[in-house]
Structure formats: structure tokens, C-alpha cells
């Protein structure tokens, strides 16, 4: 069952928007407000939500394109999208360089002579900038877009297979995931090490999102709606919640049997630990039950800011990374008191929402400007515009 409606599922935008806000809050170092984000209450975090929904929307948009225009056109559009994301990533890297160059000049403290050595790479931009352009050198918190680029680059053949035999595509994806664990596959990073988000592992959640978009969700609906699944999901979330509490209240750690600790730790984010996938699935199952697709509140003005942010995710994601740099800058140069942290967090989310509104306003006038198109043409263009942000 392939979705035929042009109506966008607003839940995707809502939760992707919320995920973008959480990623922003988590990316500001030493931010008291990040206590509210989901990573503190379970195994998975906003990254899983973002990657899954991105897989879902990419399959939705380019699946339509592949059906209507063929493999070549769809693949070409995906490559163009990957290029746009690459440009956005390099733009963010330039902003990052500006921020830390400033900090390098203004900061001195004998306590941190070792830590300041991290700025030494500024002394040889010839190597650093080239490594950044090769996506091997990735500053802290700038790992998501390179992951997204690689996922998009490899997605065309998967989409082709997903549209013919969705289950074998999902199986292939699961096989790559397993093999990456078995053989330690990952892409190399610079100056050493590997990618923080291993594309061979994280592709599984992306492809799973795509599989759900192309009818998998409908096929799963009976399992999702079964009370057994619900009970299992709730039990797993509670267990994860308890384990997460032991991170914050170490006294509770005594209640975790050693054998359990040995089985679950370390919970590997780089290689997308199975515990993280299960946690995301449990969250998704409960969310889908609590928030039906036609939930009237989705149209309420209260959710509008998050939905707008989710609908223009690339721009808002980049803005969020920039704002988290700026927030850290405010903490170091102005004040890091808790009221300032709250102010920076709230202001950042407001700016993201405002920018998302501005982007959709531009889209509206551009659409009107492009000659108030006659029926079918506008109709055909609409999905890529409304759902253009993959």
C-alpha cells in the first residue's frame, strides 16, 4: 500500500521539529535546559527521531518521483539534495572556524594549557580545511549532516529495491547493519578514529523509516495496535527510564545486577546499539497510538512552530547548529548563569520557529510568483515543494 494522498502527515513534521529543538538544546554545552531532553530518560535520543523521519520523508518524496519519472530522475534529484546538504555543512564549518578562532585569541588559562592545544589545527589550515571538505574532519556536534549526505548518496538503489520488494530491501539493510558490527565497518575520520555516526549502522534506521513510508507502517499496523506490543513497549521504556536514572543518581546503581550491566553497557551510539533502536521503536509505537494522524490538535496554532520547523528541516537544523555555537559563545563571553541558559534556550527555539515561518513565507511568494500556475502543473510541483525538505 503506497501512500497516494498528497496530504503530508503532519506528525512527521511535528516530531521532526521537536527533534530539531532537542538537538539544539543538547548541542549547547553545559546547558541546564538540556535536562528536559529525552536522552536523559532512556537509551535513544533526538538523533534517532531525526534519522527515522528523514528516511520516511525521503522515501515518500523520491519514491513518488521514481514512480512518476523513473530511476534516473529520482536518483539525480537525490544527488542534488546531497550536494545542497554538503554545501550547508561546509557553510556551518566556516561559522565554526570563526567562533573558535575568536575563542582562541581571547582565552588563556594555565589550568587548560592541554585543552587549548585543540586549537593547534588552526595553525595548518591547508590540511584541516581539506580534511573538512572530505568530511573526514568533523568538529564536535557536526556529525549529523555528513551522515545524512552519505545516506542520501547510497539511497537510490535501496529505493529502487524498496519499491519492488520492500522486505528484501529491509533485510539487506539489516544485513549491512549486522556485518558492520561483525567486521567493525566504519568510515575513517581525521586526524584519527572513525565517524561518530557510523553510516553502515545508522542506515538501518533510515531504511526502516523509508520502508515504513512505502507501506511497511500499514503492514505493521496490526502488530503496532496489539495490546501485547503496547505492554512490551511500556515495560521497555520503564526499564530504560530506570537505567537512565542510575546515571543521574549513582546510588541507584546498586540495584542494577552486575550481569545486567555487563549485558547492556556500553550503549554504543556510534554503531547504533540495538538497545537504542528498541528504545526508539517503543517510543514510536506509543507515540503513534497517542497521536493519530487526524488528531485535530495537529492543526492548532500551538503546534504550528514545531511543525513549521520540521517541514523545513535542513535550514532549521543548520540554524540550530549555528545557534548552539552562538549559545556557547554567550556562555563563555557574557554569562553562564542559569537564567541566561534558559533565556538562550528559549530565544534559540523562538528564532528557529521564526526562521521556519520566514522560509515558508518565501516558499509561498515564490510559488505565487512563478506564474500562478494552472491546475495540473502546480499540482505536480506541490509535493516537492510542500514536502521538498527531505
Amino acid at each position, binding site marked *: 500500500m503506497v501512500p497516494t494522498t498528497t496530504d503530508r502527515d503532519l506528525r512527521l513534521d511535528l516530531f521532526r521539529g521537536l527533534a530539531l529543538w532537542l538537538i539544539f538544546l543538547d548541542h549547547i554545552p553545559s546547558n541546564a535546559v538540556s535536562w528536559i531532553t529525552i536522552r536523559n530518560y532512556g537509551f535513544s535520543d533526538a538523533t534517532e527521531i531525526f534519522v527515522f523521519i528523514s528516511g520516511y520523508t525521503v522515501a515518500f518524496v523520491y519514491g513518488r518521483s521514481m514512480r512518476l519519472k523513473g530511476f534516473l530522475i529520482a536518483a539525480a534529484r537525490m544527488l542534488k539534495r546531497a550536494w545542497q546538504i554538503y554545501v550547508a555543512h561546509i557553510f556551518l564549518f566556516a561559522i565554526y572556524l570563526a567562533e573558535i578562532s575568536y575563542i582562541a585569541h*581571547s582565552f588563556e588559562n594555565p589550568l587548560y594549557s592541554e585543552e*587549548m592545544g585543540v586549537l593547534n589545527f588552526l595553525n595548518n589550515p591547508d590540511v584541516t580545511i581539506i580534511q573538512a571538505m572530505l568530511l573526514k574532519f568533523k568538529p564536535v556536534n557536526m556529525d549529523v549532516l555528513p551522515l545524512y549526505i552519505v545516506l542520501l548518496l547510497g539511497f537510490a538503489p535501496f529505493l529502487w529495491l524498496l519499491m519492488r520488494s520492500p522486505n528484501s530491501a529491509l533485510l539487506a539493510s539489516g544485513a549491512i547493519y549486522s556485518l558492520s558490527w561483525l567486521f567493525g565497518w566504519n568510515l575513517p575520520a581525521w586526524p*584519527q578514529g572513525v565517524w561518530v555516526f557510523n553510516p553502515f549502522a545508522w542506515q538501518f534506521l533510515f531504511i526502516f523509516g523509508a520502508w515504513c513510508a512505502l507501506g511497511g507502517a500499514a503492514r505493521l499496523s496490526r502488530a503496532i495496535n496489539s495490546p501485547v506490543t503496547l505492554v512490551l513497549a511500556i515495560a521497555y521504556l520503564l526499564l530504560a527510564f530506570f537505567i537512565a536514572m542510575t546515571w543521574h543518581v549513582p546510588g541507584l546503581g546498586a540495584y542494577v545486577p552486575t550481569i545486567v550491566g555487563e549485558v547492556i553497557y556500553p550503549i554504543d551510539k556510534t554503531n547504533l546499539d540495538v538497545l537504542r533502536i528498541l528504545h526508539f521503536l517503543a517510543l514510536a509505537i506509543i507515540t503513534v497510538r497517542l497521536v493519530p494522524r487526524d488528531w485535530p490538535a495537529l492543526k492548532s496554532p500551538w503546534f504550528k512552530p514545531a511543525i513549521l520547523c520540521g517541514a523545513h528541516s535542513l535550514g532549521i537544523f543548520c540554524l540550530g547548529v549555528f545557534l548552539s555555537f552562538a549559545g556557547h559563545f554567550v556562555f563563555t563571553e557574557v554569562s553562564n548563569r542559569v537564567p541566561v541558559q534558559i533565556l538562550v534556550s528559549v530565544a534559540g527555539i523562538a528564532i528557529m520557529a521564526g526562521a521556519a515561518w520566514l522560509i515558508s513565507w518565501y516558499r509561498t511568494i515564490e510559488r505565487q510568483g512563478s506564474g500562478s500556475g494552472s491546475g495540473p502543473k502546480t499540482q505536480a510541483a506541490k509535493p516537492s515543494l510542500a514536502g521538498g525538505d527531505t
Partner: protein
Amino acid sequence: MFLGLAAPVHAGEPTECGVDGGPFAVAYPLNRVKKAVANKSLSILVVGAGSSQLPGPNGAAHSYPARMQQALSKKLPGVTVSVVTDVKSRRTAADMVKTLPAQLATSRPALMLWQTGTVDAMQAADPDQFSAALETGIAQARAAGADVMFINPQYSPRTESMIALGVYVENMRWVAVQQEVPVFDRFGLMKAWSDQGTFDFYSATKKLDMAGRVHDCIGRLLADLVLEAAKPDLPTDGNK
């Protein structure tokens, strides 16, 4: 599994070292230290990178290994406490492991204090290789007859957007639990100092005063942790 060691404040110590919250250590008993104390001679090897030293002519005297030696000597009257340091900046855990057998052979310590993680994070070393280096180092120290205690990275808010410490702090903690090695949680301690306004780690200065006071506190608290872990009788809620 985790033994709570809230940093205690003893009479006559600067109150600023004390901190609410914690625990700032994962503690396991240090039997070789216990024996060395009973034999009235405790030798400690500090293996570390740049954050185990302070610059300047008096840097060594103000840095935490020297402060810890002084605190331990005071608290263990009649026991000779010697501290040897193998400290050089820009070394990853794997770098340190290379010279470790030689260091252990010359200083023959009862305790190896191992400060590492920061440089691995700065160079984005493979976290699995970091854990493997820690395990190798523990095995070497134990083979040489020494107990091991980890010191994790400093909390450095200015460089937080450049150095991702998280996974290295986590891996160190996990290796410590598996190998039953105590960890001095310098990161958590300094974060708590920062949150409670004891020290302002954002401040930019060329002067050594704050750095000196921080190392003094760390030295004293380390001495407390060593004594706690080497206690003849651990409290009943101890090591399990």
C-alpha cells in the same frame, strides 16, 4: 557496585574543596596500597598528560601530584610517601602505555594514578582502541605489582564545543567497573564546583592562582580517596 565517596571536608582544609552532591568516585579497594601503608612505605606513580602539570618554575610544586603527596604524608604519619611522575602533554592513553613497562620497572609503585582521556578526545581516537589501551595499562600495572586508579578529564567549559569528552569519560568508567579500578571523577567534581560557583572555569587569566587552588583541592581529595580505598576495613556498603 558503586561506592559513594562524597568529597569530605576535613578540619584545617580550604572549605572551597568541599562540594555538595557526588559521589565523585567509583571506588574499589586498593589492597597493594593497604599493604604498603602497613609496611610504612607508599610509593605512587602518576602517569598523565598536560592536565597533570602546571606551567612555570613553581608549577611542579603546585600541581596535584605534589599536593597529594603532601596531604598523604600529613595523614599517614610514620609512612614514607614518595610520588614519581611520568607526565607529558599531548599523550593519548595508547602513547602512555608504550612507555609504561619501563616506568613501572624503575619506580616500582604500589599505586599507579593514571590521568588520561583528554588527548584521546582531542584527537578523536577510536573509543574502542582507547578502552583497549586502558585495559593493557591496567594489566601491565597489576603485573608489576601496582594497584591502579584512574583520573578522568578536566571539565573545561570553554573548549566544550571543540572537545567531545563524553564517550571517553563513559568508556573509562566502564573499563574501571569491569576491571574493578577506582576512578577519581575529576570531570564531575569540577562541573559541580562550576555549578556551585566555587571556581569560575570560564574565566580567562594568565595567572596561576586559580589553577594552583584547583590542583591543591584535587591533590587533597585524591589523598582522601586513596586513604578511603586503602582503609583496613571498608564500610559494609563497600565494594559490591
